[in-house]
């Protein structure tokens, strides 16, 4: 009896002993950031370089099954893409994402008291788990959260007695028979309707929404406060965190992101502009001003500068699917924290350390305030985040390897494998490397999303959405 181990492809491993053999199909992310070969799949959005401001993508989110992909933009619109069912004959690519529904979620408003406009830009979209035929999502701008129902209509009643097919009423004297209207198939129509509007609860700008694992409540966080809502109740919300000082002159720290724990419905975290994360337990008190845990890494004194605080500000926090870890993104790095250890992260990945010597210029042109998001793959083995020059980075937590890829129309032939990119920090630039000073800081990837089950990623440049998949043999 002997064992033969053969790696059949990047995706499969075959173990054979005697006449018996078994195949190991890959679990999601098993190949790791570098073993996976990422290929271009699709790009959505306008081709021309002239970007209309309303088309700037401001959020990207897969639903729980991965079948639907939602984007929000600066013009207040939500566009939902649906993955087509896999073509059984041609199984060398997964289903494509095509437009499923488009609707105007938020409109610009004017706050008369402050004489200020309220932007219609969609800051976040979060999907509810599917409970029936319809899909539900929460979308929010700076001030108002809305619950949208997206439903399909593929039948309509025909054969009314009193109405013509076009809706006009028939002359009653011409009605001589009685019939029962029947449902007949029609072209699929996808309708989006606002079911709840959660307004007037935030003085400051909403930066996060997060649905609780009880699927009945959710939180919304602005710069200074976090509110807890029930999905059914719009005229009341509970304030669970308030860091507004009595005297606004003493304000030195704001809330930057918040999220519920994926499994514990009493636990949530929020991050701050000073680089701290606080974990709160709602069972402890109604107002969770005292944290249960405080996650903070001591500052490295050798790297101290006037910009230290700014670059430590956390722009995104995401729990792992398992709930054991959480990931934070600050300006230069991604950190993975074990919820059981508060004094330092368990893993730190440098996203673009070559920018550390350029912080003053980045402060001047405001890029230092860019809020990058981050995301986990389905198995929590790889994390991804964006950078400048339309680059995005992936870090494999198991192999400790990382890769830099570019979202650009140059690689847009389907199934073209993306070539890894490299930035040359200093010194002699090798061929195919790009020097730091050549980076385009207007081309930033702030929003990325990873399919919950498969190796499909959605990467948003300023006004285009790129979809990449791993290479399927």
């Amino acid at each position, binding site marked *: 009896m002997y064992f033969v181990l053969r790696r059949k492809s990047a995706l499969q491993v075959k173990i054979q002993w005697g006449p018996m053999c078994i195949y190991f199909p890959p679990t999601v992310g098993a190949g790791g950031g570098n073993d996976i070969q990422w290929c271009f799949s699709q790009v959505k959005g306008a081709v021309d370089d002239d970007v209309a401001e309303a088309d700037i993508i401001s959020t990207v989110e897969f639903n729980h099954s991965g079948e639907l992909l939602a984007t929000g933009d600066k013009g207040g619109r939500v566009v939902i893409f649906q993955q087509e069912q896999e073509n059984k004959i041609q199984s060398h690519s997964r289903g494509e994402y095509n437009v499923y529904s488009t609707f105007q979620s938020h409109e610009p408003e004017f706050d*008369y008291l402050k*004489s200020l406009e309220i932007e219609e830009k969609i800051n976040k979209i979060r999907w509810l788990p599917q409970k029936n035929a319809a899909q539900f999502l929460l979308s929010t701008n700076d001030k108002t959260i809305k619950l949208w129902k997206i439903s399909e209509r593929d039948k309509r009643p025909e054969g009314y007695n009193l109405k013509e097919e076009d809706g006009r009423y028939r002359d009653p004297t011409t009605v001589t028979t009685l019939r029962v209207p029947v449902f007949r198939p029609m072209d699929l129509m996808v309708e989006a309707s606002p079911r709840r509007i959660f307004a*007037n609860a935030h*003085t*400051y700008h909403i930066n996060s929404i997060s649905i609780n694992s009880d699927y009945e409540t959710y939180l919304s966080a602005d710069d200074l406060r976090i509110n807890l809502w029930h999905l059914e109740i719009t005229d009341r919300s509970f304030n669970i965190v308030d860091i507004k000082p009595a005297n*606004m*002159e003493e304000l*030195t720290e704001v809330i930057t992101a918040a999220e519920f724990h994926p499994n514990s419905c009493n636990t949530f975290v929020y991050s701050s502009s000073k680089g701290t994360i606080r974990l709160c337990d709602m069972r402890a008190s109604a107002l969770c001003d005292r944290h249960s845990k405080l996650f903070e890494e001591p500052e490295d004194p050798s790297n101290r500068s006037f910009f230290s605080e700014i670059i430590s500000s956390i722009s995104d926090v995401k729990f792992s699917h398992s709930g054991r870890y959480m990931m934070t993104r600050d300006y230069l790095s991604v950190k993975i924290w074990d919820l059981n250890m508060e004094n330092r992260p368990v893993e730190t990945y440098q996203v673009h350390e070559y920018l550390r010597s350029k912080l003053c210029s980045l*402060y001047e*042109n405001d890029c230092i305030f860019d809020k990058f998001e981050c995301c986990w793959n389905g198995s929590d083995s790889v994390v991804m985040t964006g950078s400048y020059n339309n680059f995005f980075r992936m870090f494999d937590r198991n192999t400790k390897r990382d890769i830099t890829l570019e979202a650009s129309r140059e690689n847009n032939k389907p199934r073209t494998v993306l070539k890894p990119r490299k930035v040359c920090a200093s010194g002699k630039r090798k061929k195919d490397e790009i020097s730091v000073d050549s980076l385009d800081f207007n081309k930033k990837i702030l929003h990325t999303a990873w399919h919950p089950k498969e190796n499909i990623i959605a990467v948003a440049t300023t006004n285009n959405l790129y979809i990449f998949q791993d290479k399927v043999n």
Partner: protein
Amino acid sequence: MGTMFARGLKRKSPEDGEDMEGGLAGARATPSYSLQRQSLLDMSLVKLQLCHMLVEPNLCRSVLIANTVRQIQEEMSQDGTWRVVAPQAAGRAPLDRLVSTDILCRSAREQEGEHPAPDVGDGHMADLVPGLAVVPSAQALRSPQSSLWEVDSSRENRGGFQKSLDQIFETLENKTSGSVEELFADVDSSYYDLDAVLTGVVGSTPSAHASGLQAFASAAAPPPSSSCRSDLGELDHAVEILVET
């Protein structure tokens, strides 16, 4: 220069034999460091004072910039290059007084004859005289009527920035005791807290991001909006709305 700021450290006087973190002890004493630090301070003040057109500013960004300004102020106070004369009112020790975060857009009703912010702001950046320390006068500090932006001389410019910082951070103080609070006394404060109104006013425009990195000295301040709002006419209008409802 960029390196300098990336590694700026807590400064001690060159006479100290103590070891410093990072070992750039000599660099911090140079006039070039002071100039760069002052430039950073000026840049930060410009960022804070720019009024945004219509949309409420990003509070996180404002807080981070204000904290940076505070850090610089603290360091300059320790150096002795930041000499703040004691104010006539409010018994706060000048060196202990850290700037508050609440920054208000300088509205037309605050100061008559205010120059449009954009032109003067850019002019200021170009007028900086290297090596001058900030030495504001007591009268300049406490005079709310004095114009924010002055073009007289380079020394005056320097004082102007100091004035502007204090004036900005004190405006809330003035407002809380002023007419604005009375104006809103009858309004249900749950949605329209005074602080909500006032903190909403500050702005900074999203700057025109340069593609590629620009040399620090050559970049101009991002063009601010030309319309600083909330003049008396609008205030009257707001009162009318309140009264009618």
